[in-house]
Structures are given as C-alpha cells and as structure tokens.
C-alpha cells in the first residue's frame, strides 16, 4: 500500500479586484439581456462623446465606470473633469432599471456631486431583449453626443465649483 500525503491550506482571503467580479454580480435584470454587452456598447458610444469633448477642452480628464445595485441593473458612465480643479465633474451616463417586464433606459449629463442637469432626455421603456436594450441605449447616447458642447462648457464653468 502506498503512502498518501494530504496537504491542506487555509484559504487566503483577498479583497483586491473583487469589485471587478462585483460589477455584474447577481444582476437583478432580466437574464435575456447580456449586461456586459450593454456596458461595452454604451462605453463604445461614449468614446465618440469623449473625442468631441477632448477637441474642445484641452487636458480634460475622463474616467469610465459602471455601478449596479439592488434597484438598478447597470449605470454605465464616463466622468469628465479638469485636473486639480474644484469644478464639479460632469457625468455622462445611461442607467438601466427594471420597469415591470421591461427595462427603462435613461440618459443625461449632470454634475457628479451636485446633480445639476446639463442635459437630460426622456426615458424609454423597452422589452427585455439584448437588441432592444442596446438599441435604446444607442438612441440615448446619440442625444448625449449632440450635447457635447454643453458638456464642454459645464466642465470648465467656474460657477460650478463645489466645496
């Protein structure tokens, strides 16, 4: 009979990078929608907005992100700010929430901390399919891109300085 050696190791808990897993953990949204796809689509469209703003505001800082919670499926956004400035950053984002059997899609440009609206657009409710959600997001983002000038003005507006 051979000798069996068993090695056991205590689990090592690490929290670093767990947020990457948390981004779409237990998403409350319809399973028919691939939220990773939706986020990628939103960000691809926000790249066009970013380019327009960069053409107008030299040195603008842009950060991409996404969040989710129990009552919202996905908020995919980019934050525009001036480095070393107290002016409230402007957030361009699309939020997806449940609305009955469908998904509500809403986009706006607004202050990160103050919540002042730079531009907002009517929300739409679409069926819970991947294509419908992505198409609604594209429509919303088209409107956001058209407001690039307003975003550029707001991100440099000293009247929007926060404490």
């Amino acid at each position, binding site marked *: 009979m051979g000798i069996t050696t068993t090695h056991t190791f205590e689990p090592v808990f690490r929290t670093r*990078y*767990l*947020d990457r897993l948390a981004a779409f953990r237990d998403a409350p949204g319809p399973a028919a929608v691939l939220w990773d796809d939706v986020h990628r689509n939103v960000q691809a469209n926000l790249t066009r907005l970013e380019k327009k703003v960069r053409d107008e505001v030299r040195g603008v800082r842009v*950060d991409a992100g996404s969040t989710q919670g129990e009552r919202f499926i996905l908020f995919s956004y980019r934050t525009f700010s001036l480095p070393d400035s107290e002016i409230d950053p402007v957030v361009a984002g699309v*939020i997806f929430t449940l609305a009955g059997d469908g998904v509500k899609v809403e986009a706006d440009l607004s202050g990160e901390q*103050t919540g002042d609206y730079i531009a907002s657009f009517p929300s739409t409710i679409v069926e819970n399919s991947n294509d419908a959600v992505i198409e609604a997001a594209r429509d919303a983002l088209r409107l956001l891109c058209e407001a690039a000038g307003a975003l550029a003005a707001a991100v440099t507006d000293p009247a929007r300085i926060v404490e």
Partner: protein
Amino acid sequence: MIVYIWGNLTTDNFTPRAGKDTVGRPGQSPGLSASDVLSAGKKAQEIDTDKLKPPLKAIADDVTQGGTVGHFAIAPLNEKGKVDGKQLEAWAAWRGTGHIHEFTQLLFDAVVKPNVKG
C-alpha cells in the same frame, strides 16, 4: 428613513473624500454626507437607511451642537457604536481609484430610487 445623496451613482460620489468627509465638525459626525431633502431641480439618489447593512449607519447631525438640520453622515461604526475612523479613512482611500469599496457597494444596494429629481 429616507435620505438623499445628491448627485450621481458614480463610484467616487458614493465614496467619502479623504480630509473632508473623514473629519467631523461641531454637531456633525465624519462620514459621507446625505440629506433628508432634495435640492430643487437637481438629481439625487434616494436611500432607505433601514437597508444600510452594518457596519454602515446614517448619523443625524446634532443641531444643538452646531450641526445642520436634515444633514446626515453615513459612516462605518465600531463595536461600541462609534464612528470607526480607521475604517472610514480606509474607505476614503478608495476614492479616485476606479475600484468599488465594499461599503460603497453597500450604499448602492441601499438605493431604493435611483435618479430622483428635486
């Protein structure tokens, strides 16, 4: 109880600012600011404080000590029920990193109405 965090559902807006939110003032505990009122015409996130999971708690200002009526500070508490300064500072250190601290996620999960307008 319902309170509002003014502004957007971004990671940074739901993470305390080091050196600002980590410092208390007369009548006001350190922590991420929230209010029981909306700001007219502006966006906010509606939070049900009953949905806040430990160690987070919303602490109302003490107006008799110079705090502001309707202002709350959301902060982690220690086992003695006091604001845990070390945990609060550790949380604030995540702001601007692009990563989501576990307390930030607890706050996102306590949002009951996203994007309400005052």
